[in-house]
């Protein structure tokens, strides 16, 4: 929690031009992540959390329009041209994709794909790159080293592919890593192992990380701060213990109660689709404590030095 934040965003919002209209995926996000810390964005699919991750590394398809500012170590990277931004991507800013199954080039061995990052940004020496890759694989607990490096993606299980992508992201010792849904589609045992390995990796390298997930268990074990996202907005922000133990926003409470160990108390209704967004507080149709005020006004979220744990709700 000290010094200049590694990543800081000011009123960041993202829109997609689709057909003749445009779809708001993310609006006025103000977040800052400090060196060596892990901010976890917790939210359902369709809440825009991956969009935020992509916008930091400019991985959006061409029909996306990004507004607002993003700062990396104090430097405003949204102002950079593509050419100026390029050296940052991969070297300083890394990204671990969500769907592991289709995010690896099927025709190249996994070793080569991880070496590539090291040789591109650190040193173009084949031997050293391979050594670095094997170390990372060992750190992430992958079996049958070093032969595994010559295997191809289709020969690996889901969990192993996920860890290879993590290795790929961290192979050039980046300052900041975005990890998108590391545990989606994995079974319980694999999930436990991936969480353990990522935590271990983060601690040894002291890397700053933005963790995107819908799984509360992942947030609980890895995050320092947690931002709960709903329908393109951050609805609650604070340290892990504050948000999980004493949630202020009704949606966060609903999320925690829906956990199996808390008895599956589901939140009724659906998360709104991007095209027909409700007015006022986006959660009002599903909120048990909804009042007229919630329907008319749109509550604000102001993070300040004094007030760390805040929620975007009139009744917080």
């Amino acid at each position, binding site marked *: 929690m000290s010094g200049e934040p590694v990543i800081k965003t000011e009123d960041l919002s993202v829109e997609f031009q689709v057909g003749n209209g445009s779809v708001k995926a993310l609006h006025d996000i103000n977040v800052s992540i400090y060196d060596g810390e892990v901010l976890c964005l917790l939210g359902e699919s369709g809440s825009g959390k991956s969009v935020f991750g992509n916008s930091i*590394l400019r*991985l959006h398809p061409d029909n996306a329009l990004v507004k607002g500012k993003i700062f990396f170590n104090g430097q405003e990277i949204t102002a950079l041209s593509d050419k100026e931004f*390029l*050296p*940052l*991507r*991969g*070297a300083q800013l*890394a*990204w671990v*994709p969500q*769907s592991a199954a*289709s*995010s*690896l*080039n*099927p*025709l*190249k061995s996994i070793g080569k794909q991880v070496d*590539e*990052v090291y040789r*591109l*940004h650190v040193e173009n020496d084949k031997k050293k790159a391979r050594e670095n890759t094997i170390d990372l694989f060992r750190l992430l607990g992958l*079996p049958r080293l070093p032969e595994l490096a010559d*295997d*191809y993606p*289709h*020969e*690996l*299980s889901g969990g*192993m592919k996920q860890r290879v*992508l993590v290795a*790929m992201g961290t192979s050039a010792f980046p300052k900041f890593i975005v990890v998108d849904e590391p545990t989606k589609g994995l079974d319980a045992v694999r999930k436990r192992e991936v969480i353990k390995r990522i935590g271990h990796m983060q601690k040894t390298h002291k890397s700053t990380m933005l963790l995107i997930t819908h799984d509360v268990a992942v947030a609980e074990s890895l995050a320092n701060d947690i931002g709960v996202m709903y329908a393109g907005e951050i609805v609650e922000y604070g340290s892990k213990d504050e948000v999980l133990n004493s949630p202020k926003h009704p949606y966060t409470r609903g999320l925690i109660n829906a956990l199996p160990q808390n008895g599956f108390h589901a939140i009724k209704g659906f998360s709104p689709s991007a095209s027909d967004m409700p007015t006022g507080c986006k959660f009002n149709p599903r909120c048990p404590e909804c009042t007229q005020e919630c329907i008319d006004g749109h509550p604000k979220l102001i993070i300040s030095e004094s007030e760390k744990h805040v929620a975007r709700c009139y009744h917080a």
Partner: protein
Amino acid sequence: MAQFIIKRIIYGIIVIIGVSFLSFIVLSLAPGDDAVTILTHTFIGFDDQIYQQDVNTVTNLYSLDRPLVMQYGSWLGNAIKGDWGVSYVHNLPVWQMILGKIPYTLTLGITAFGIAFVISVPIGLYVATHRNGVVDHVSRIITIFFGSIPSFWLALVLILIFSVKLHWLPITGMGSVRHVILPCVTLMVGMIPSTLRITRSSMSEVMGQDYMVTAKSKGLTERQSVYRHALVNTLPPVITMAGLEVGHILGGSVIVETIFVWPGIGKLLYDSIISKDYPMMQGCIVTIAIGYIVSMLVVDIVTAAIDPRIRLGGGRN
């Protein structure tokens, strides 16, 4: 993979026998009595007087009166033993005629295909990465145009310009590289549309894959991610199409071979069909079928070499 190759070869043999049998039967249905047609293409001119005695002598000379299946059986029996029979019209061993023609057909076919491939693949790649751009539309219009030009048009126009008016290139004859240029260009133009279209669709599909986003996230430039990752994945369908085109090369093109007096197998096959020269026709068809099968085999091997999923089968972890 070895099991795959053996299966492929067996299928190939079945196809060869199938094609030769089908063509044997179907040609006998063609108009005109076999003996009369052969007579008019061997001993006498096609509009000279035909005497019944001569027809009978031709019939028993080549034993055409035997039932079709018997004739095919004897041809097949000899073919397997390596004797492809003697051509009625040329009265030379069939294999010698074909062997003589293969180098010419291949030189023309492979050079034409090579250039077509070298031109259409880069354009296909460029167009896929710049969809709906000006180049995309222009290339589409050109592909359709090249696909529907009658090849003899192109041949005659090329000859007019380069041989008759400018005297740069010879029309007929053999020997130097200059002789190959005109027929090669005519053939090549016909081959561009299909390769271009396959490259474009395969490349645009690959560009949409998730691993291309990963490549971008690694900090690769647009050009690097295309060459290192996209290109390899685009190859398999393009190579399969290339295999098909190469398979047809041996078939040659009757029109180009007639106009440029190029001794290819296409003209030889066409003439043997018209004059019902059964042994020669069978020889040509079997050669073309073999060419087709070999190119399919090469395609499968190359795709297996590129794609580990085919080469190594299911995963074991």
